């Protein structure tokens, strides 16, 4: 007997992600899945974003790393509720891990829940966590070919952050080349060039986030590109 399935390999994960999405929709909390290579500056961007948005925009954070609680410690120092997920070798977060983290995190009533994924441009893109939108980040020292080499990550991003702009003059990074490749995959996502370290260019990113938070609060049907 032949059984035609045409079933997504990640169906089980997608079902849990849908549960997460339903749960999170109750609180009108904007859920952002932040993804990049290791060392692009995800945690630094979160620290800066927390400092910029302040108490006007209460946040909660889920940190994903293979090992250590170092990232969660950094967020905790800023007085933001955070849960660290250690994947112990796993290359991405999945919806089940996020579901477990949500039970320990006081996310309800907060404007933004950031999920900082495991540093990796490949695997995290395939796993829906129940987020509203995905943000893909690349730092200038990594090179401008990242969207072309890791298309899935950038194709599904609602916004792309180019970090470490303060190092631009020391690299051969070309924003034009990055944009040319990115537009093949993703014609509409805004690109935010900034330095999370110096704060340069941060205002546009923060303004965009505020807009997404407002859209979510107003119950807009879509706040970003659904994965």
């Amino acid at each position: 007997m032949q059984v035609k399935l045409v079933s997504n390999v990640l169906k089980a994960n997608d079902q849990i992600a849908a549960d997460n999405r339903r749960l999170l929709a109750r609180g009108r909390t904007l859920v952002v899945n932040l993804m990049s290579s290791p060392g692009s500056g995800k945690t630094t961007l979160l620290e800066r974003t927390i400092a910029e948005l302040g108490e006007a925009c209460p946040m909660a954070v889920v940190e994903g790393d293979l090992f250590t609680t170092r990232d969660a410690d950094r967020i905790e120092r800023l007085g933001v509720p955070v849960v660290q997920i250690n994947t112990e070798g796993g290359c991405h977060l999945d919806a089940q891990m996020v579901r477990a983290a949500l039970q320990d995190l006081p996310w309800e009533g907060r404007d933004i829940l950031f999920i900082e994924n495991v540093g990796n441009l490949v695997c995290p893109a395939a796993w829906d966590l129940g987020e509203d939108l995905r943000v893909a980040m690349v730092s200038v020292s990594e090179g401008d070919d990242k969207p072309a080499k890791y298309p899935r990550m950038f194709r599904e991003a609602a916004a792309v952050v180019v970090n470490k702009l303060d190092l631009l003059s020391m690299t051969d990074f070309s924003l034009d080349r990055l944009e040319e490749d990115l537009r093949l995959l993703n014609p509409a996502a805004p690109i935010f060039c900034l330095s999370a370290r110096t704060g340069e260019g941060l205002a546009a990113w923060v303004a965009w986030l505020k807009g997404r938070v407002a859209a979510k609060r107003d119950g807009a049907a879509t706040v970003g590109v659904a994965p």
Partner: protein
Amino acid sequence: MTLEEVTGRRAMHELSLAQEVLRTVNDSARDNGIRRVTRIRLVIGKMSGVLPEALRFSFDAGREIVPAWTPGLFAAARLDIVEKEATAKCRRCGEAFPVGDLLDLPRPCPACGSTDLSLDGGLEMFIDLFEGD
């Protein structure tokens, strides 16, 4: 016992993919009264980030371990992986053409000259069908 516990590692995401394949086929085999799966066909896009050989390794490691509704369900199962080439599509004229990888993409569109192109195929990752008795 999970596959991760048996292999002692989770570093390859192909392990979790193989586990999902076996679980999905198990459930469907049970519903259809199939006691012996002979073939499973997966479709994997070349830009999906999945390594077919790692998936095959994970499938072989997992088939004895993942709970099956009846003993030996996967003992004779062959895994066929169909790799799908990446294709691009012109957003203006709709012309579709294969690409080796994105950096090799012909720009502009070979049919109409537009530079408004998009990646179309190559990101697939699904179980197409399985056979058994």
